[in-house]
């Protein structure tokens, strides 16, 4: 009958919190766009990040070199652009792989059930039991610091999260009367994925993916920082922080620049999330 909440819901104006959250998302998107542009265009325009000029050792920032030069006289700005590009590309690859694998496995487990579900769930529980960084460390250690090892390690550590969330959510959707009706209408699996599962999972996956970008970028730089990840002379944010630490008192810009980029990337990806789980 007349539900009392109906007229109330219809006219709810976007509240101040919601407007603030939209503004925060827009600001994050603009800032992130700037960082992506820097990572995409910077390496093409700037000098070779590996070119050494030992006579310009620890040069202070100037108009031609806005971030100065490091202990081998390499341009910090050029190195930063390369490092940011590496972080973004590698994190994007890891997240995309984890998302596709985890989502597909989650839907498969929820759909088929029985032994497929049991096997996939057991495998995922093994990964849950191990700390994510340990998984990355194990893979990175066996493959001796290559980019590929890092990629495989991080993707392996992350797919579980997508798998578990998607499996739980998809089981609810697949058990709903709407999907039952679709089956009776003989609409096929593609309709169920496209019209039922995907619209329901999309907000969940975008939130997980933006969090996943943060975790991947931080995992990479953490490994670089403890010297297990990528090896010098490659420009990588974590490595740049470690390498510059000995010169902190004479050239603070050296370590502050990569830390600032890490901080901005994290804030932007976290700010992109929607607060309401639509």
């Amino acid at each position, binding site marked *: 009958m007349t539900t009392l909440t109906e*007229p109330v819901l219809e006219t709810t104006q976007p509240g101040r919190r919601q407007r603030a959250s939209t503004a925060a998302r827009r600001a994050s998107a603009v800032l992130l766009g700037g960082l992506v542009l820097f990572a995409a265009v910077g390496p093409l325009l700037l000098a070779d990040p590996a070119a050494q000029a030992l006579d310009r050792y620890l040069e202070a920032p100037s108009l031609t070199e806005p971030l100065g030069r490091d202990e081998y006289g390499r341009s910090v700005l050029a190195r930063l652009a390369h490092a940011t590009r590496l972080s973004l590309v590698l994190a994007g690859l890891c997240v995309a792989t984890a998302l596709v694998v985890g989502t597909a496995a989650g839907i498969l487990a929820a759909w088929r059930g029985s032994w497929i579900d049991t096997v996939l769930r057991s495998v995922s529980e093994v990964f849950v039991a191990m700390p994510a960084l340990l998984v990355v460390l194990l893979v990175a250690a066996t493959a001796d610091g290559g980019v590929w090892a890092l990629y495989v390690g991080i993707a392996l550590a992350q797919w579980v999260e997508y798998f578990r969330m998607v499996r739980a959510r998809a089981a609810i959707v697949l058990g709903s009367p709407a999907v039952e*009706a679709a089956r009776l*209408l003989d609409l096929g699996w593609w309709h169920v994925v496209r*019209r039922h599962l995907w619209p*329901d999972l999309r907000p969940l996956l975008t939130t997980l993916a933006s969090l996943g970008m943060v975790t991947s970028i931080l995992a990479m730089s953490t490994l670089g920082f403890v010297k297990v990840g990528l090896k010098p002379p490659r420009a990588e944010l974590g490595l740049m922080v470690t390498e510059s630490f000995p010169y902190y008192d004479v050239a603070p810009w050296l370590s502050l620049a990569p830390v600032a980029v890490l901080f901005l990337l994290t804030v932007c990806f976290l700010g992109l999330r929607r607060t309401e789980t639509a």
Partner: protein
Amino acid sequence: MNATALTIDRVRVRHHGALLVDVADIAVAAGRPLTIIGESGSGKSLLAHAVMGTTPAELEVTGALRLGARSFDLGDRRGRRPMWGRELALLPQEPATALDPTMRVRSQVAEGVPGFGWRSRGAGERADAALGHLGLSGAGRAYPHQLSGGMAQRVAFAATTVGGARVLIVDEPTKGLDPVALEQLADLLAEHCAGGGALLTITHDLRLARRLGGDVLVMRDASVVERGAVADVLNAPAHDYTRRLVGAEPSRWQLPWMRVSAPEPEGRPLVTAAGLSKAYGDQALFEDLSLTIRAGERWAVSGPSGVGKTTLGNVLLGLVRPDGGVVEHAPALRHGRIQKLYQDPAASFPPRVRLGVAVADVLARHQVPAERLRSLLAAVGLPEGLLERLPSQVSGGELQRLAIVRAMLPAPALVVADEATSRLDLVTQETTTDCLMTELADRDCALLWVTHDRDLAGAVADQLLDLGAWAQGRSSPTACCSSTK
């Protein structure tokens, strides 16, 4: 005895200038029930909440009411709070959701006793007495989810009346109740009245209005269109709308698709079920049940709630596996030629996709020309603009008609309607059923209607399978298959 307990001089409820309720001069006398009937959205429930003072703050309420000798300004929501439970009480819609799911039944009822204190013994005893009086003495330690719909309704009734309120307002009490539970509830309400209480009932169920007697108000579009004694108004309605409402009761239907007698069983069998049995835990729903549904036949499965009607429907659809026995579908039912209509149509469409997109997938899969969709929409009286909306933005009646259109697109040979109209008010139920049955009659499609409403079963079906009678008597299931004519 006939002292006026509650007088509503005038109530107006507005929302952003739109008038939702505008009613004057309603007097509820002690011992004489007053029932307000009308269609969904006519403002009946809002009226009840305006009287209680429980309307949402966004709604602007003006007017005045008198409780005995005291008068209250309706605009002041707080003024009536001291009266709640002591003088004025409301039995809410959907008691199963109105009860606290985390509290045992006895403590919920005890909270309503005047002078209730934590662990006060007197309150607990009063609660036990109230529950015992309603035949629920065993249920005191149960949680609400362990109760049937009828039992939850009676617990809510105990919690509402334990405070001794003389004026009782009952909002839409029959939603989802089977006839047995409806009888029990009507007895309780009548008893409240006979004991000198005043009763204001809001319902769209004319059977309850007749059962309670007293006076009736007919509401439409925020105002009262007719009032008088129940017998006068419902037997000789003066207003056009009341006439439509009374005529919309299934027992009074006279529609072109209704059959005078059941046709001879000559069609080819579509669903053949033999020796079916199904149990949930220890509770056996049905055992050794056999039936054959032939092309063009119209079946109804009836019985009180919890007897396994819906489960039987799903077993026959092939959605639920029976514990024993076999269900055979004829090849004519393959590829979407067996369809189901749901009690809640909103749940049967993908919730985040526009209706048009969901229906377009059906057109593409079954290679139905768009022309056919357009003619079907026109036949059930739906505008094409409806397809632009999401399921949550369409009313229940319209969405059920769209569900009928969708079910018709694959040209089905059998449609299973699971309580397909039980959430709709009478007039909407009639139009919706008419749409479905006209479509079915046009293409000689078979029907299995699962319902607890015997009048509706009689109107739409030729053969009736009464699961309730079978479960009670444990008689041979075939004896419960009878002609409805």
